[in-house]
Structure formats: C-alpha cells, structure tokens
C-alpha cells in the first residue's frame, strides 16, 4: 500500500508542477503584454481574470471532457483519461490565479524597476535583466501558490483523469475513492500528506517573500 501512496504522491507532484509551469508559459507573456496596455480595457480584462479565479473545477473538467472525448473536437488526440489532460485542465484552471498574481508582480516591476533602470541609464536589454533579477523570486512565489491550488483540486482530475490506478490517480481523487470504499484511515493518511505538501509549499513561499 505504501508504494501506491508513494506513487500517488509523486504523480500528484509531477502533474501539478507541470501544470503550473504550463500555466506560466502563457501567463507570463500575456501578463507582460497586458501591463503595457495604456487603456481602460486593461482594468476590465484583469477584473475578468480576478473573477475567474473562482471558476468551479468541475465545470472546467466537464468542458475539457467534452473537448477531449473521442466524440469531441479534440478526440483524435486520444488524451482523455491520461495524466496529460489533467495537466492541461489544471493549467487552465489556475491560469486566472496565475495571471492575477503575476499582474501585481509585473505592475510593480514595470512601474518601479523598468523606470528605475531607465533613469539609471540602462538600455532595454539591461533593463530587462534588472527586472528579471528583481521579479524572479516573486514569480517563484506565484508558482508555489498556484501549484497548491492545482494539487488540491478534485473536479478536473476526476472527470478527465478518471482516477485510474497507477496512471491518473492523484491525491484528491485517491482520497475521494478511499472515502467511497469506506477506508477512512487511508483517506486520512492521503489527506494529511496532501496537507503537508501544500503547507510546506506555502511556508516556502512565505519565507521567500519575507527574504525579499
């Protein structure tokens, strides 16, 4: 049983961290572009993303299921009930959170460090270097927070992952199944492990934040 729990833990970590990285891949350029807009629509767009943070996970799961189902438009990819759909689903789910958090980080970087670099005589490349140096740890903090949202969600993992043993079973779906089986002890062990993971991630984020 412990090798199975170990597998579930490792799988959850890999899936959710990949999802977080994936979300960063599109959120970073998007947010950077958004920051540079000098128009009122910027506030509306970021307002929408703020609202979407509360997106129900089962809704994201359902939409993805319909997309990736064999009869759906992306069915030919044959990705349903694989870890890859969970990765895609979780990355979509956390994107509004990532963008909202990055927006804060980037606004500050843009308003403060970009200008500062220019006042001190930096060319564009030097200014970018300076910004990266200043925000890299903030981006890391953003990813940790988003990661903990991804690893703690159930809806997407259950609907598009299918909770397949040894393949798409992650912390949350395993907990749901153990409850279904009436095996509360295993459910609690898994729940505590998940809690420990999330707690250490959040604590790490806090420590990094205090240091900078």
């Amino acid at each position, binding site marked *: 049983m412990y090798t199975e729990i170990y597998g579930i833990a490792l799988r959850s970590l890999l899936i959710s961290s990949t999802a977080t990285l994936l979300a960063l891949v599109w959120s970073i350029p998007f947010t950077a572009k958004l920051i540079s807009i000098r128009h*009122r629509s910027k506030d509306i767009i970021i307002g929408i993303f703020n609202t979407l943070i509360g997106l129900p996970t089962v809704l994201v799961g359902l939409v993805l299921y319909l997309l990736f189902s064999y009869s759906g438009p992306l069915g030919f990819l044959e990705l349903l009930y694989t870890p890859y759909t969970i990765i895609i689903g979780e990355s979509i789910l956390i994107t509004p959170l990532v963008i909202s958090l990055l927006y804060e980080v980037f606004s500050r970087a843009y308003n403060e460090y970009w200008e500062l670099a*220019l*006042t*001190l005589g*930096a060319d564009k490349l030097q200014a970018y270097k300076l910004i990266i140096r200043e925000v890299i740890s903030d981006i890391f903090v953003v990813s940790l927070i988003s990661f903990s949202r991804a690893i703690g969600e159930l809806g997407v993992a259950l609907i598009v992952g299918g909770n397949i043993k040894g393949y798409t079973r992650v912390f949350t779906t395993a907990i749901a199944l153990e409850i279904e089986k009436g095996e509360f002890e295993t459910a609690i062990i898994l729940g505590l492990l998940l809690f420990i993971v999330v707690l250490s991630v959040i604590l790490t984020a806090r420590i990094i934040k205090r240091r900078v």
Partner: protein
Amino acid sequence: MIVLRNIWFSYVDENYVLKNINIEFSRGITVVLGPNGSGKTTLLKIASCLYKPIRGEVLIDDINYWNLNEEEKIRFRRKIVYVHEKPILLRGSVLDNIIYGLIIRGYSRDEAIKKAHKISKELNITSILSRRTETLSIGERRLVTLARALVLDTDYLLLDDPIAHLHPSTRELVVDIVRSMKDEKVIAIATHDPLSTLKIASKVIILDSGRIVNISEPRNIIDKYILEY
C-alpha cells in the same frame, strides 16, 4: 538645457495631467511647486525622457529626444538622472545599488566602488554600504537613491521630492550637496514643501491641475508664501 515645448500628456485616454506645458530647465536649480496631483512628478518624468508626451517636444541640448534612434536615446538618457519620490532600491547591498549605474555604463567594478565610496562619504552613508537594502530605514533608503544618482555625475539632475521623510539634519546635508552643484548642473526639484528648497532655487515654477500658473524668481514666491501663511 532641457526644453519642454507645448507638452500634453495623459496616462489614460483623454484625461490630461499635463496641459500645454512650456518650460526651460537651465543651469541652476529649478524648483517645481504645486499641490499633490498637480502633475509635478509627471512633468519631471517627461523632462527626464521616461514618458513620451502625447503631444509636444522634449529638447535635450537642442535635440528632439523622441526623434532619436535607440542608440542615441540611450546616450542622451545617460546625461540625465531622475530620482523617484519613492525610494526604490534593488535587491542586494547598498554598494551594489550605488554602483549599478556605473557598471551598466561600462565602468570596472574597482573604479565604480572607488566612486561609490567617495559619494558615500559626502552623504555620510559609508557605514551602511554593506547592508542589505531591505534592512534600511526610509531615510537611509532615500540617501542611497540620492547617492546612486549623484555618483553618475550627470549634467542633468531631476529630483522628485528629495527631502521628504528626512531627518532635519539630513535634510540640511542634502540641500547643501545639491546647492554645491548648482553652478555645474541643470537641477530640477519637485516638492510641495517650499521652505527648505526655495532658498537655493534660481527659478520657481508653480503647477496646478496640469497647468503652469506661475514662473518667477524665488524672491517673489517667498514674499507670496510669507504673505499667505
């Protein structure tokens, strides 16, 4: 000399925060006065070529800055240093901050450190050079931002409320240092506290709601303020 000609500027849409500004910043100290939100900061940022005006021209040494190519722009921008009202420091030590502008200008680390030590002595911050910036007090942070700007020894020096939040004795020190550079540099100081700065000013500009309401000798302004208060 920095000349602003018919400058209009807005951050969002048609909300102009600067309306048809015409000023010359020339050798000596120009003090820009005005209440909060009158456009002082924006004016200084336009003069230091951080913001591109919506309309109008910014001339640095008679050259229209925004018509320059990227390379020339940097060359011109390196003649100007603007110090933010909010003291923003980079991660790392105080020394790292002070030498940053020199390093990106191609100075060697040794040279840069030598210059940093010299300016630190003048500003009396030698003792904090190795401290990490997040441990500094607000007054110390401001002195570091000043040191970081002054070490560059630029022709143009634009200071946004440089004496706010400073201890009175430190304030005197800063004012004295700025005064000592009066004859070699073009200096502009934005402030809403005229008392410490007017005595060193060569020209005073009063801004209100994005418009210049008065440009005159400090003498007249002091009289006016004395009458008002």
